[in-house]
């Protein structure tokens, strides 16, 4: 991110006022108007985003969920797997002792919800990183070099798109018997990178012909410099937007695959596992579904809201 902001090309690309670059003091000690004029696309976007209440509340929700995933001990001291069904502890309603009640196996449901965030978020974040790296690389290479390489890579993308997401995931995971978080992350990456690659490719092709790239080329920049310093920072915005929305999609996908019986398995704790274990008790004990479903829906919704806000903020035409 800092690389994107510090890149001289990103500076002014959104507002079209690069001549001031040289005159503005680089340490940012200049007066306010000068700084405002040299603000990058991302700085402008950021200023717009923190004034957007929807974006701020969605980000706060994600921050809370992320802190659950990284530091579960901050939220609870109970062990999510210390379960006992003796003493009528199965499916107890919420109480002072157990804030979210107890699960069918008598585990503390609050502790499970907190610790469940880790697997759900880990799968989603790792798959998103994998998708952006793999799809971004393929899209960048295909868009930048064009020609034969582009044709071949585009055909490969077509082949992957020929496999519907859920069906492909089912076929692989149903055979795999020991499923950990990483097996789900790998499958999601393998089946979802193509869309990012297409977005990246289109975005690179669009910025390849721009004047500043031609100028850098005329100055003798190597292809590597052109690709990573000049084209990538300006082509990355739509990928960031889509990847954010995809993060929510992956949280939902983990829960769905687990429900279908091809996701995580019981000793693991995740929101998907919690929903899967209790979907038959909706009538008697609705809270058993309410808490994990609420967390999943809240997370997915937050990522969609953040993605939408990012899209609006990063599109200079809308400003």
């Amino acid at each position, binding site marked *: 991110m800092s690389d994107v902001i510090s890149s001289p090309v990103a500076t002014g690309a959104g507002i079209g006022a690069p001549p001031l670059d040289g005159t503005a003091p680089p340490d940012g000690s200049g007066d306010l108007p000068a700084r405002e004029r040299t603000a990058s696309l991302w700085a402008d976007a950021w200023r717009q985003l923190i004034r957007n209440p929807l974006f701020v509340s969605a980000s706060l929700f994600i921050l809370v969920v992320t802190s659950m995933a990284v530091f579960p001990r901050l939220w609870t001291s109970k062990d999510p797997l210390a379960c006992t069904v003796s003493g009528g502890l199965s499916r107890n309603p919420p109480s002072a002792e157990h804030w979210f009640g107890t699960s069918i196996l008598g585990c503390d449901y609050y502790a499970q919800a907190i610790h469940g965030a880790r697997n759900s978020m880990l799968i989603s974040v790792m798959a998103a990183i994998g998708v952006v790296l793999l799809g971004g690389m393929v899209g960048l290479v295909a868009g930048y070099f064009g020609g034969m390489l582009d044709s071949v890579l585009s055909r490969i993308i077509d082949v992957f798109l020929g496999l*519907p997401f859920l069906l492909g995931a089912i076929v692989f995971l149903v*055979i795999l018997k020991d499923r950990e978080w990483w097996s789900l992350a790998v499958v999601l990456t393998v089946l979802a990178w193509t869309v990012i690659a297409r977005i990246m490719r289109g975005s690179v092709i669009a910025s390849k012909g721009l004047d500043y790239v031609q100028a850098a080329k005329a100055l003798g920049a190597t292809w590597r410099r052109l690709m990573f310093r000049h084209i990538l920072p300006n082509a990355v915005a739509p990928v960031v937007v889509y990847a954010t929305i995809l993060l929510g999609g992956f949280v939902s996908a983990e829960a*769905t695959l687990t429900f279908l019986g091809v996701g995580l398995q019981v000793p693991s704790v995740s929101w998907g596992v919690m929903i899967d274990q209790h979907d038959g008790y909706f009538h008697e004990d609705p809270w058993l579904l309410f808490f994990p479903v609420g967390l999943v829906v809240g997370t997915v919704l937050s990522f969609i809201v953040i993605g939408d806000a990012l899209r609006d903020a990063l599109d200079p035409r809308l400003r």
Partner: protein
Amino acid sequence: MARYMVRRLLQFVPTVFGALFLLHYLTSVAIQLTGNPVRAVFGDRMPPESVLRNLTERLGLGDPCLEQPFNPCLSLFLHRLESIFLHFDFGTDFNQRPVTDIVAGALPLTIRLTIIAFLVELVIGIIAGVLAGLRNGSFWDYLVKISTVLLIAVPIFVLAVVVRDFVNVSFGNWLRGMDGVPDLISRGVFAPTWTPNYQWASLVVPGVVLGALSLATIARLTRTSLLENMRADYVRTARAKGLRTRRVVGVHTLRNSLIPVITFLGTDLGALMGGAVITEGVFSVPGIGRQVFASIFTGETTVVIGIVTMLVLVYLVASLIVDLLYAVLDPRIRYE
């Protein structure tokens, strides 16, 4: 037009083989990492070596390359292609019943379910999108925007379980307890699970659930493209000519605005097939999706592989048809 069609058809062939290979490689790697899937049938019991070997051999899983991790198993792939395209053989389940038989029996229900889902998402989705797009910033616009985001955020299996328990069971029980409600409604449309007595009626609710996710996407697509097109010059011309709003929207704008929706329908079929596994599973509709759902739990991997292979082929052919249709509708594609 002809050039576009030929080019698209030529691209189709390598895509089919590529997708089948990808499917084959995914399953092979999973088998190589896990071990013989046939053993899953026996659970904890250890079957006699001869039985195990015999069954493995008959299911076509005996190739030694399936024991070497990440080996692409090309000879096995060619063998599979041969049986798929020459003998129309997609494998058998563990009881030697051909997958094609299983699919043939379950197919009509799944087709019906998909038709209902398609109708629901097209009719409601387009109407909602048009309402929101025409009155940008109004109550309708916000209602459609917020409800579609919510619909996208709820995983489809959660929606299915909630609808089954609330609508079909609770509301249905209340209806069934009342006098004067026709059976078609209380025991058909709102039956807790699919019933053979009401072949179409009891598919309505599962169909609506299946179509719900794409409904949201279609509504949003229609809304954005309608908003864009309403600002176009040809719309202003049409208005200037004195045409009534109904004609301007219905004939001029909507026709152009629906092009992205048609493109979406192609990819949507893939999502519907995946969704059918969930909705048919939850609502006990004995279609293809439920076969996959059930085979996952019994561990009959060969059935899953066979059905998914067929579905992928159907999906690819459907995408091809949508692409060709697209060229008919949009001259910009055809004269490229």
